[in-house]
């Protein structure tokens, strides 16, 4: 019993040190939220296509490995990540599709004309309702959906080269196997 009184404060101290050490990790974002839909089947959505391009329907996801990217012409980080989306589109065996989020078709067209179009299909979500089906918190957001139509990955921030190499490419390689 008396030994416990010596050990207990030490254990508390060790616990606090671990807690604070983790809190000091610069890569940790305390406001990032868990993605509730990972491992879940993709929501049932049907979106009209942008212009005369094909739109997005949840039935399209079956049998294909899909990278789904929400974007908008008014979103600056979308422009920043656009070259990486193009790089993803050049990978074999995967299908990159986009959804324009609360954007006018004319502005989306201008954005694609300026930066290039890496998307095989583009759905128009003008009300933001499709975004809500995915638990979207803002644009850009990127999802990976496997052949069974199950969401395997979600990035709720702009894609960067580090994440592309360390997270997305290994996952896509594993899925295309």
């Amino acid at each position, binding site marked *: 019993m008396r030994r416990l009184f010596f050990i207990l404060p030490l254990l508390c101290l060790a616990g606090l040190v671990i807690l604070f050490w983790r809190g000091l990790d610069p890569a940790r974002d305390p*406001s990032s939220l868990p*993605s*509730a839909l990972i491992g879940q089947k993709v929501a049932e959505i049907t979106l009209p296509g942008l212009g005369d391009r094909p739109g997005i329907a949840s039935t399209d996801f079956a049998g294909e490995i899909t990278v789904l990217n929400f974007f908008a012409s*008014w979103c600056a980080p979308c422009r920043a990540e656009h070259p990486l989306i193009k790089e993803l589109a050049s990978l074999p065996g995967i299908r990159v599709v986009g959804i324009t989020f609360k954007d*006018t078709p004319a502005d989306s067209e201008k954005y694609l004309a300026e930066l290039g179009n890496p998307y095989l299909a583009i759905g128009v979500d003008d*009300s933001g309702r499709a975004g809500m089906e995915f638990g979207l918190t803002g644009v850009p957001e990127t999802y990976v959906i496997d052949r069974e139509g199950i969401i395997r990955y979600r990035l709720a921030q702009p894609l960067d080269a580090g994440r592309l190499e360390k997270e997305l490419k290994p996952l896509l390689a594993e899925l295309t196997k």
Partner: protein
Amino acid sequence: MRHWPQKALLALLLLCLLSGANLVLPSYALAQAELPDVPLADTALEARARKLMKDVRCVVCQAQSIDESDAGIANDMRRLIRSEIASGKSDDEIRHYLAARYGDFVLFKPPFKASTALLWAGPFLLLGLGAVIMVMFFRKRTTTLAPGSLSAEEMRRVEAALQEGPLQEPPLQQTGEPATRPDHGSGA
């Protein structure tokens, strides 16, 4: 005619402002291309919607409910809640819909289930643990003080010590003072 140059200047200034506004407004309007947030006509349904909005967290601002947030996503959620309530959905169905997509974090009052059990029961568990420790502590103290805990041999020694009484008391005895206290009860 004296005021002509001033008027021209004013007109020019206005023109600049207007064209400036024209240049700036479209992109602003796009970023803020929110559909209007119209209250329901039925006051009872609107009251229900507002009550529910106060319990739904804005996933962008996080410390605000969607009832008080200006974020685009909060606006979307308000419109969703109103349209779902108008179409006859229950509050729980809407809560469930949002929690399934945004996680329990989106509700200010998370539901009680396996993954949140510790969150809800934690304080009571700690309170119970404290009570148990307290009971153990006091029980131990009272048992060591209870007369029944002495063995027969110990009780005999206690009796003997009590009978010897005054002899065991320190030097006071040797100064010749009486063993009983004087003036007890009669003094001031």
